[in-house]
């Protein structure tokens, strides 16, 4: 993507985000949101993060690659275990990066 296109995209995303934020305070100040939107919002973050992580780990050049000797999926597994045990973001990043360096050296 060119810098100009990226700038335009970011401005659009910023505007849309601002409209969300201002929506109920200023635009439709006396309305409430439908229940299904509440239900939907709870799932957006887990679905987005999972799709992106799976893509980063297993998709290369538009193809699914499941290789046993790839360091990133194994490092991600270590990170997932640390995240699950500690619930700590910094510990997860630290363990995942350390594991990545070890697996890159091993494979």
């Amino acid at each position: 993507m060119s810098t100009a296109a990226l700038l335009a995209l970011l401005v659009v995303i910023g505007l849309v985000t601002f409209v969300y934020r201002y929506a109920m305070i200023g635009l439709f100040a006396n309305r409430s949101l439908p229940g299904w939107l509440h239900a939907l919002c709870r799932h957006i973050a887990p679905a987005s993060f999972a799709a992106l992580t799976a893509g980063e780990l297993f998709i290369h050049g538009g193809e699914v690659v499941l290789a046993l000797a790839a360091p990133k999926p194994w490092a991600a597994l270590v990170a997932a275990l640390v995240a699950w045990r500690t619930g700590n973001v910094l510990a997860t990043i630290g363990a995942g990066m350390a594991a990545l360096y070890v697996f890159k050296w091993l494979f």
Partner: protein
Amino acid sequence: MHPKLVEFLAGCRDEAPLQLGVVPFGMLYGIGAIQAGMPAWLAQLASAVVFAGAAQLVIVQMLAVGAGALPIGLTSGLLNLRHMLYSMSIAEHVRHLPRRWRLLLAYLLTDEAYAVAILRYQVTPPPDDRPDLRHWYFLGCGFTLWLTWQLSTAAGLLFGASVPAGWDIDFAVPLTFIALLAMLMKERAGQAAALVAALAALAFAALPYKLGLVVAIVLGLVAGVWASRRREVAR
């Protein structure tokens, strides 16, 4: 000290502890943006224009894998929808304010500022004998977070430019998603959404411009809503 300033500073003070969690995210975003090939000025500008941490990390990750404008726009559009919920929740407390105040507070309405400000609104009743100045408290929360976000982005950009690509430091972005997922997947419905989205991302990997990611997120949403419905029915 003027009562407005007292309220503003109280907001800054109560928002301060949360900055410990914000700084690493801001730095990570800056580092990721540099490694994804974003010009530093544009990455810094995005922190002011978009001003939403999770969406900015997602944008950087999608740029890194070569996603097109449409999937990036759709994904951030979905991810930021939750701000409408905050907007609705806080509306009754700021509805009486002049428009310039509402515009300013809307711009500053992020996860972390909302969390602290709504507590003040819900826990501290409006004073009877003097004007309600709690919007100054909200402004203090929002301003503190805004400043931290801009400064930590700048720090990440400076740091990211000096780290060699061979260190794979951009891998910290998906690692962050893994850490957040572990927290979000404590609920059954979150598990369903994440699992279906991950599998669908692989199933639709061949779609152009990484549109498969958007399809995967939507299918994950459907699975999550379906799973929580089923739970409610079972109860």
